[in-house]
């Protein structure tokens, strides 16, 4: 039965991949036939060959490390500040009532548009990229931490109180572990926003890792290289997304 179910899932996936391959082959054919301008859309085969060039000549792995370093720093800031603020708002109910709508409004504001302001404050440095990613991704971490702590089942809190746990023990032994899956959802969302904003700002200010590579290749009119670099960035983003998704599933096995 399982093999039948598995094959039932494999066929559509193979069909999807086959369609993707067919679309790439069709584009290759249309360009070779002269129906699509190859100066605007390069040959997919040429893009494929450009991967080797961007890996060895454009030092893409080093750039990946730079982007990862910035993402790591922003994620650390996000985790520490976001969770701390979430805990603080959970403990101080009045402060929460006064500011929760402000934080939710911040989450819907296009904060990344403040990057020129950050350029003035921090200069054209990695700190501009890290800080804008941190600020833009902070609201979901605070809100999800708050949500996780507030939705802890009352029976768990009652068990802790029946054991006469101190408020600090109640936090560390009951509330925090129970809220951890929801907190991780927030941290994951924050990390994804941070990575998107980091690559975006790198591209916009032409500084740093992978985003800068795309910008540089585009400015050199290296069209196959630009397409290859974009594919590489997408690949990295998708892998990051899948890795964090796996961790989230591991933390919430029932979901």
């Amino acid at each position, binding site marked *: 039965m399982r093999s039948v179910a598995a094959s039932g899932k494999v066929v559509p996936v193979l069909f999807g991949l086959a369609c993707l391959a067919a679309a790439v082959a069709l584009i290759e054919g249309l360009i070779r036939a002269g129906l699509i301008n190859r100066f605007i859309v390069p040959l997919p085969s040429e893009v494929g060959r450009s991967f080797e060039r961007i890996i060895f000549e454009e030092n893409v792995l080093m750039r990946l490390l730079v982007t990862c370093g910035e993402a790591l720093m922003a994620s650390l800031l996000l985790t520490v500040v976001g969770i701390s603020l979430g805990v603080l708002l959970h403990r101080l109910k009045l402060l929460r009532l*006064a500011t929760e709508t402000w934080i939710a409004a911040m989450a819907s504001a296009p904060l990344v548009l403040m990057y020129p302001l950050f350029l003035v404050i921090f200069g054209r440095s990695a700190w501009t990229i890290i800080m804008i990613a941190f600020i833009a991704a902070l609201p979901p971490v605070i809100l999800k931490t708050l949500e996780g702590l507030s939705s802890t089942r009352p029976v768990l809190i009652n068990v802790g109180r029946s054991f006469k746990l101190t408020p600090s023990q109640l936090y560390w032994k009951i509330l925090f572990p129970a809220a951890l899956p929801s907190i991780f959802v927030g941290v994951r969302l924050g990390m994804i926003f941070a990575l*998107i904003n980091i690559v975006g700002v790198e591209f916009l200010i032409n500084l740093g890792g992978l985003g800068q590579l795309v910008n540089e290749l585009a400015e050199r009119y290296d069209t196959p290289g630009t397409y290859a670099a974009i594919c590489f960035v997408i690949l990295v983003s998708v892998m990051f997304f899948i890795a964090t998704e796996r961790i989230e599933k591991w933390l919430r096995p029932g979901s």
Partner: protein
Amino acid sequence: MAATGELTARRTAPRFAPGQVTLLRVALIAAIVVIWEAVAASGLLFRDVVPSLAKIGRQLIELLLHPNYLLKVELMFGLSFDVPIPEFYRHLWITVWEIATALVIGGSAGLLIGLVLGANPFLSQAFERFLYYLGPTPKIIFFPIMIMWFGVGPGSKVAMGTISCFFPIVLSTAAGMRQVEPVLIRVGRSFRANTWQMVTKIYLPAMREPIVNGVRLGLGVAVIGTLLAETKLSNRGIGFMIMDAYNTFDMPSMYAVLIVLFVVAIGANALVARASRR
């Protein structure tokens, strides 16, 4: 039992007087204003990096009320006249037009493809995975390609907004369609509704909430995609105004434009959210 009673009593949320929350909000705003003014007056940062609130306020009034642009209004028979307006509204109009066009194109495509994927499990398994994983990728890096395809004018900004808003709308629509209650579908079929009637009378009304949520998310990312593209390469629009203020180091103007932008974006988001709850 006594212990349980005590626990229940302790668990109840603390109640605050209605004025307390407002009072705290006013106190917080006052504290922010005082800290801001102190930093502005201290000279710790370069001049105007943190300008005084009075300067920002003046710039805000200038931005919104000072008529420094002549808008040519064309009438019939070749007649026209000039109306002086603040130039900000010209830029705002261009950005709003780009975002609205992007939302119409990306939203229609997202809705259509979402309906197809939601209705067909085979196609959903074949393609939805790609859309799901492509959704959270940085779209702005597609901007060089969009410039090559659509030029340096508004076309490339509309394209950026379109690819930004397409993903949340298609994924919300597909998920929403799968959540439509089977009894509603059976009612439609028992009335022998054709495909068009099923979509317009059964599916779309039942999916209003996920679709509006998708549009809300799409609007947010379309605003970001369009404006970031404007900051990178343009000579009009709100994104251009931000970069123009940056290039001339006119920080009060930059703050004023950012404040108006955030108010408009948060307001638009709240309006769409209200529509989903109605």
